[in-house]
């Protein structure tokens, strides 16, 4: 049965259509679009949400389709953010330092410039030397490569060790939690050279774009995020459909049986784990310039757990489910914790949503797991079926 890609994935067309409509609508309503209905800060929130949707579909592929409950994929997201952040921070600091040194009577030597940049960036951790991992921070190309390659390499090595030893199920989840915790603690160290708990900041200032207002830069990043999400959706739809998808879903349901069919299960898991890690890195690289700051707390174990919660609530095993889950939960989270949700006065007790949001989220998660295992995305199954829709 050789059917076309779109025929096998009717959701791709609908998703791209909805995403385009959403992008156009938001653009028109943004400040840069001439209207003030969507403030620049809300535009950034929307752009960030698209990045979270992208990492959520990656999570869905690895968990919902391949059955690997990775509770460490946010680490790859964070690494992507750090990789692009290093270039943003270096380049921006270099510009400022060069401009201010230009006013000196004596022209500065290259060493003086490097020292000045170093003390600007690493002054907060009491140093002014560039650590080794900043060796490529002057090159946008190399740092962009690092966005994809470092998460990919880490996932490859970690996955190879774990899958080769046939670590599965909850043990693998614990291992991935340990990985993201270790990485987070490592980044907290000042000696690691990533400014410890200060993290990287000022990432919203894009070098070379000083003349462009933030409203416009934010819109560009929003577009880039929307494009990345669309491309990621197409990529993953392609991966999880067809024969490869068939084998991946079979591994989720009974990996021993797949092995006896002659498939090298570990290669498949490694492929999925690494590919999704790379996409997570890209999502992170688009997210943090919009957030403006990244610090090691971003890759704490809880972040990866949230990721799994989004996918579970949205409905795993379907890509649009992950998108819906990530968008709904993360937007609601910022609404409830941002103080805009009205507190409920019960007379004897006032429910403050900033405190109670996590309780609500937790209860929702339990309720979804128990009563609606298909999640929000499962609602689409209730739509009347058209002829030819088998999935």
């Amino acid at each position: 049965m050789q059917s076309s890609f779109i025929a096998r994935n009717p959701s791709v067309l609908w998703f791209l259509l909805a995403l385009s409509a959403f992008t156009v609508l938001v653009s028109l309503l943004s400040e840069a679009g001439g209207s003030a209905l969507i403030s620049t800060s809300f535009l950034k929130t929307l752009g960030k949400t698209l990045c979270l949707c992208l990492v959520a579909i990656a999570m869905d592929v690895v968990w919902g389709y391949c059955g690997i409950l990775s509770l460490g994929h946010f680490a790859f997201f964070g690494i992507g953010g750090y990789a692009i952040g290093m270039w943003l921070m270096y380049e921006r600091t270099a510009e400022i330092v060069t401009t201010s040194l230009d006013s000196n009577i004596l022209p500065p030597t290259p060493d003086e410039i490097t020292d000045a940049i170093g003390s600007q960036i690493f002054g907060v951790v009491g140093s002014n030397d560039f650590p080794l991992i900043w060796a490529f921070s002057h090159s946008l190309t190399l740092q962009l490569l690092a966005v994809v390659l470092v998460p990919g390499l880490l996932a490859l090595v970690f996955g190879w060790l774990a899958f080769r030893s046939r670590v599965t199920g909850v043990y693998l989840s614990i291992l991935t939690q340990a990985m993201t915790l270790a990485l987070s603690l490592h980044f907290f160290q000042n000696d690691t050279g990533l400014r410890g708990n200060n993290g990287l900041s000022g990432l919203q200032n894009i070098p070379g774009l000083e003349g462009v207002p933030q409203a416009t830069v934010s819109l560009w990043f929003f577009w880039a995020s929307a494009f990345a999400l669309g491309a990621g959706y197409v990529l993953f739809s392609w991966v999880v459909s067809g024969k490869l998808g068939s084998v991946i879903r079979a591994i989720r349901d009974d990996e021993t049986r797949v092995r006896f069919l002659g498939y090298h299960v570990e290669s498949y898991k490694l492929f999925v784990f690494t590919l999704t890690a790379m996409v997570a890195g890209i999502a992170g690289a688009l997210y943090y310039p919009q957030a403006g700051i990244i610090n090691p707390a971003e890759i704490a174990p809880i972040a990866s757990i949230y990721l799994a919660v989004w996918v579970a609530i949205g409905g795993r095993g379907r890509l649009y489910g992950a998108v819906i889950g990530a968008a709904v939960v993360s937007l609601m989270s910022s609404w409830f914790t941002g103080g805009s949700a009205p507190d409920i006065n019960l007379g004897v007790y006032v429910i403050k949503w900033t405190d109670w949001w996590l309780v609500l989220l937790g209860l929702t998660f339990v309720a979804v797991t128990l009563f609606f295992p298909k999640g929000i995305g499962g609602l689409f199954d209730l739509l009347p079926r058209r002829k030819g829709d088998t999935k």
Partner: protein
Amino acid sequence: MSTLLEVSGVSVSFDGFKAINNLSIQIGEAELRAVIGPNGAGKTTFMDIVTGKTRPDEGYVIWGESSVNLLTMSESQIALAGIGRKFQRPTVFEAQTVRENIVMSLKNPRRPFDLLFGRQADDTEYRVRVVSDEIGLTDALDQTSGALSHGQKQWLEIGMLLAQDPRLLLVDEPAAGMSPAEREHTTDLLVRAAKTRAVVVVEHDMDFVRRLNCKVTVLHQGSVLAEGSLDHVTKNKDVVDVYLGR
């Protein structure tokens, strides 16, 4: 008849319990063989060892003309070498259609990138049809396999094995939970399959074994108790003792 699989002097113990004790069995090419024995005789463990799921403590498992040592190979390598296995409990991929189950099993390149970038062979549909006709599930090709009856799932699993085109088929209790008519169909399937390849059937239903009409190996406490035609082994005093519990 040349030997396809040779198991010699294999022993394995789990926590001190000897599941297999100095077991030696030879299977020839295009041979139908039934392996019988009471519970705990080591029938399933024997299959586990041949397919690489369990590593024995000692002994050899030699495969094919070039005498490859199966004990050094992984499950997937053994499967690719031409040994297919059907489990006791029917294990088909229930979330997927009958067609997807069969396509996945067809003898094709099996690396991730082969599947991602390789074009589907033109004769795929034909090969799927050959298998589905053989197991009588052609009408159900687009059905989700989870919706099949127990017997149909067993046949689908046998069909998946045939699609792999193995040289040796290991079948664990294929008739369990089947109606008499389904059993007959299953017997036919296995007898036909054994014309072109070796088939080893593990079973403890004597009637079913009688219908297979083939050489029988009786296992007891992890080693071979008797071997020969069914009539021959049922006259064996040891076998009678074991089966009737003295």
